């Protein structure tokens, strides 16, 4: 394999001094950048119709700087560099503007290639230089440079457009060592306003038998984006769009949407349903909270109702629905609490509904927590506003309360309950007008498909605050449509799950003596049967508590082998082999399979309780790693005749602390598979490069046709 670094600069986004571009450059690609003035863009300032992508350092520094610095995959003694170079103007003085420098592992510069004021090129090796015999570079012209640098022999050869212009042999370099790093687009203020643009970077080593000759000729880098899904699609598509073209973006720290201050949004003591689809970009931190919706003014004691997700140190990170009957903090009651950690980047339908004094919370159509008797008359106020996505006092956003994410199809139905039991979550926009029998009760329905923030009922007006805006995501329902972004866009992606099964036990009364709960096994074989006792005597006995909550605490401790052996559960009880238990704030017990995957769905969960039950006879919801996905790619540039390598570029991350590895492969038209590296994925979006090349595995070569008919396979390995 000889092409060890390939970069077309087309996947970092566009901009000068752009935080997004800078972050993309540093996300697993370049080790250091001049963050203040890196420029990446398509075309050149004097030739905007140019379709190539270029990188430059466009700010001058008295001490000199570079656009980017990159580490070689491994330090080597000899390498070949090919790139395209252009300058807007020749420098005003020598040795100030450069194309590239070569560094050793100690970050010492072994050689620098400068563009001189005459247009000559100079290879400066610290103790001297080797220069071209005359000008070879002119302003506003694209040149192909090909270099052979041998740090062992201290040789350097440079070709410009196929003509050798510098040959330096066994020179007395000031610094030596293997080539470990290089920097591109050197800039210093003493050189004037000349900027050096670099494109189509290819670095080759000397391994193998192919493509490692010098010169190899003019080569360019074509960035091909997915344009079709293959038949096998295992990874789930997570586009940003939900129902209809538009969604509401609430990703600014003071973002929200206000309804009108009126009595229309008072819920009183009657039936209601407030619901919507929510997607988190990030979860609240520390003691912050993410308010989904509410009518909750604190400074004027105008609290009525609010649903929010707490940060880790606020309500244990629970999802909480709370109300007040008089607007003051003294009557605030947290009616429903549920321990829930949503996955960032996934849409959830969330609904709160009250029917004849029975209050329920649903996530994706499944009731969470218990039904709460709630006949309270929520505080009525025409002074406060119903708010989506943040908490406000009046119209002033409260810091650290925003929902960092998106919403779609938000609906408030006042006077009627839409849900009293589990239901199929919506798969499309809510019906409007005559298609909804409860339409007369809908006071707020927003689909955000209009470019403006509006209430589709025609009722009270809405006001966006902060940077809240209705946007139309540029993604689709197919995998390739969410990953074909030339600039990083981590709000639209594909994902591969590995989910443990779960089960939920609900007690409606304190268990009786000798009643049992069975879940999983003790040791992989023998069923783990937990027996409630008034006095514990044996292993797997569980002490009946004074309350449901206390009894569940004891059962959780027994299942987990936690604190309380010999006190709240029998001595000799071993931790459950198959599951881990946790108590929900509703005093329900949730167990989670220790091994994620569908295997957990066969873990039995039974009981002999007179006043309690499992949600199902086995755990549910476990998912295996899906099969791979494959994608076809756009065409090569029209003039392509030779293809000597393919580099697979991906930007990946994982959702949580669980370990995971992925592998990208190039699949040829005849089914051959060239696998890239299996990589451990981190929680931060990171760019990974896998170079697929003909050499030295076989004498057969990549051709434009094999690229055209080839596929990229995305596989989660573990």
């Amino acid at each position, binding site marked *: 394999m000889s*092409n060890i670094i*390939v970069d077309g600069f087309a*996947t970092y986004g566009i901009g000068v001094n752009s935080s997004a571009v800078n972050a993309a450059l540093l996300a697993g690609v370049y080790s250091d950048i001049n963050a203040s003035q890196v420029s990446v863009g398509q075309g050149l300032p004097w030739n905007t119709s140019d379709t190539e992508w270029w990188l430059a350092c466009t700010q001058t520094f008295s001490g000199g700087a570079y656009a980017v610095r990159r580490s070689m995959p491994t330090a080597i003694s000899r390498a070949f560099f090919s790139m395209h170079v252009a300058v807007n103007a020749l420098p005003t003085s020598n040795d100030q503007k450069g194309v590239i420098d070569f560094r050793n592992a100690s970050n010492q510069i072994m050689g620098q290639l400068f563009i001189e004021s005459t247009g000559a090129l100079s290879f400066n090796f610290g103790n001297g230089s080797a220069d071209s015999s005359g000008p070879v570079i002119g302003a506003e012209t694209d040149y192909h440079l090909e270099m052979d640098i041998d740090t062992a022999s201290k040789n350097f050869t440079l070709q410009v457009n*196929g003509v050798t212009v510098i040959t330096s042999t066994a020179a007395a370099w000031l610094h030596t060592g293997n080539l470990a790093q290089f920097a591109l687009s050197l800039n210093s203020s003493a050189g004037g306003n000349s900027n050096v643009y670099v494109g189509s970077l290819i670095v080759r080593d000397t391994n193998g038998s192919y493509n490692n000759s010098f010169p190899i*000729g*003019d080569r*360019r*880098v*074509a960035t091909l984006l*997915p344009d079709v899904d293959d038949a096998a699609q295992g990874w789930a598509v997570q586009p940003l769009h939900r129902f209809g073209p538009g969604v509401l973006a609430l990703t600014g720290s003071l973002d929200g949407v206000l309804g009108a201050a009126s009595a229309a949004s008072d819920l009183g003591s009657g039936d209601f349903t407030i619901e919507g689809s929510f997607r988190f970009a990030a979860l609240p931190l520390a003691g912050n909270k993410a308010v989904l919706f509410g009518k909750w003014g604190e400074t004027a004691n105008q609290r009525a109702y609010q649903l929010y997700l707490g940060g880790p140190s606020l309500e244990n990170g629970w999802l909480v629905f709370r109300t007040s009957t008089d607007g003051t903090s003294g009557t605030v009651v947290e009616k429903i609490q549920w*321990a829930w*950690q949503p*996955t960032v980047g996934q849409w959830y339908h969330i609904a709160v509904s009250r029917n004849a004094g029975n209050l329920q919370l649903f996530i994706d159509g499944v009731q969470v927590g218990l039904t709460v008797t709630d006949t309270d008359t929520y505080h009525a106020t025409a002074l406060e506003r119903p708010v989506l996505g943040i908490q406000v006092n009046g119209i002033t956003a409260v810091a650290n309360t925003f929902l960092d994410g998106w919403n779609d199809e938000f609906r408030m139905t006042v006077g009627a309950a839409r849900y009293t039991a589990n239901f199929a979550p919506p798969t499309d926009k809510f019906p409007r007008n005559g298609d909804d029998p409860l339409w007369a009760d809908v006071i707020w329905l927003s689909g955000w498909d209009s470019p403006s923030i509006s209430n589709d009922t025609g009722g009270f007006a809405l006001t966006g605050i902060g940077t809240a805006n209705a946007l139309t995501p540029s993604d689709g329902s197919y995998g390739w449509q969410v*990953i*074909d972004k030339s600039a*990083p*866009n981590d709000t639209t992606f594909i*994902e*591969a*799950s*590995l989910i*443990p099964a779960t089960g939920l036990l609900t007690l409606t009364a304190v268990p009786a003596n000798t009643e049992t709960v069975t879940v999983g096994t003790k040791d992989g074989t023998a069923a783990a049967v937990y027996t409630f006792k008034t006095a514990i005597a044996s292993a797997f006995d569980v002490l009946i508590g004074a309350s449901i909550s206390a009894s569940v605490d004891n059962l959780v401790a027994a299942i987990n082998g936690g604190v309380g052996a010999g006190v709240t559960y029998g001595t000799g009880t071993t931790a459950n082999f198959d599951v*881990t238990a946790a108590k929900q704030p509703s005093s329900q017990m*949730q167990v989670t399979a220790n*091994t994620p995957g569908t295997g957990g769905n066969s873990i039995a969960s039974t009981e002999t309780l007179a006043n309690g039950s499992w949600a199902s006879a086995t755990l549910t919801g476990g998912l295996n*790693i899906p099969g791979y996905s494959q994608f076809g*790619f756009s065409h*090569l540039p*029209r003039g*392509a*005749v*030779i293809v*000597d390598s*393919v*580099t*697979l*570029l991906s*930007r990946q991350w*994982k*959702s*949580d*602390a*669980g*370990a*995971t590895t*992925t592998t990208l492969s*190039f699949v*040829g038209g*005849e089914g051959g598979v*060239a696998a890239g590296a299996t990589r451990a994925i981190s929680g931060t979006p990171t760019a990974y*490069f896998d170079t697929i090349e003909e050499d030295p595995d076989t004498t057969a070569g990549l*051709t434009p*046709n094999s*690229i055209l*008919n*080839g596929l990229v*396979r*995305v*596989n989660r390995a*573990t």
Partner: protein
Amino acid sequence: MTIAKAAISGQVAAAVVYAGTPEPRTSQLAAMLTLGLAARFAAVDAIAALVPYAETAAAVSMTSAIAALVPYATGIHSLPAASAIAELAVWGTAPPGSEARTRAWAFVFDGHPCYVLDLGEEGTFIYDTSTSGWAKFSTDGYVGWNMRIGTTWTEGNRIIGGDTFSANAWEMDPDTLIDEGFRDIYHAATGGVATRSRVYLGVESLRVIGSMGSLDDDTPVQFSLRFSDDNGKTWTATQDITLTVGDFGGEVAWRSLGSFMAPGRVFELTDYGGLQRIDGADIFIEDFDDISTKYLKQYGVYE
């Protein structure tokens, strides 16, 4: 006044790749073609010369225990996600001096007997004996046409040729709209009207009839016209008309094209991935058939 389809330059045929076993080198291929070893090309496939990498996915363990007794709050719902995937292909064009001359050959295509004169770095020239016209064939990225040393083969006189560099064999396919499965085919046709008149003749319009709706993909194609009033020394900027897939009935015409006098006007029609054929083109010139009368009137010969 009507001008017929004139000289064609650019590659007009698309290609299908063959996979032989063993893979023939160009030189071997030439020998086979010369000797008529048709059986060596019995296996037809869309792809050749692909790296035969070993399948590795089957060896991947699909499930694995990640952890045991992980506290519920931290979760083990690992969801690796990918937001961007791309291929970075290192590509190049044929380097100078790499296209050697090869022997001439002939084929019959759509009833037109054609003689192929492969002049290496000078290009590839085709003489159509039925129209007595020359055309230049070329492939993007090459100087000449990358289908070389061809022959006709088996029933139906399939037109088979080798490749400039690779071990591929190519077949001309009159029905395929793209070349080698990925290239839009560039077409160029020129025709002209000669005149010795020094009186300017106004061109009302140029109208083209051809396979308008049959394009190589769903992307609209620019069909371009430019013209020269000095025998091709200088040209106007192109004027583009967008062709749409499936629109077979729309009129394709350029109007108000100015005027010209001696030596005449040359029109050039071009597209990438556009028309399979041009049936004909008509130009409408003001009083073109009455030039002499108009000329003489101008100088007072006729009153």
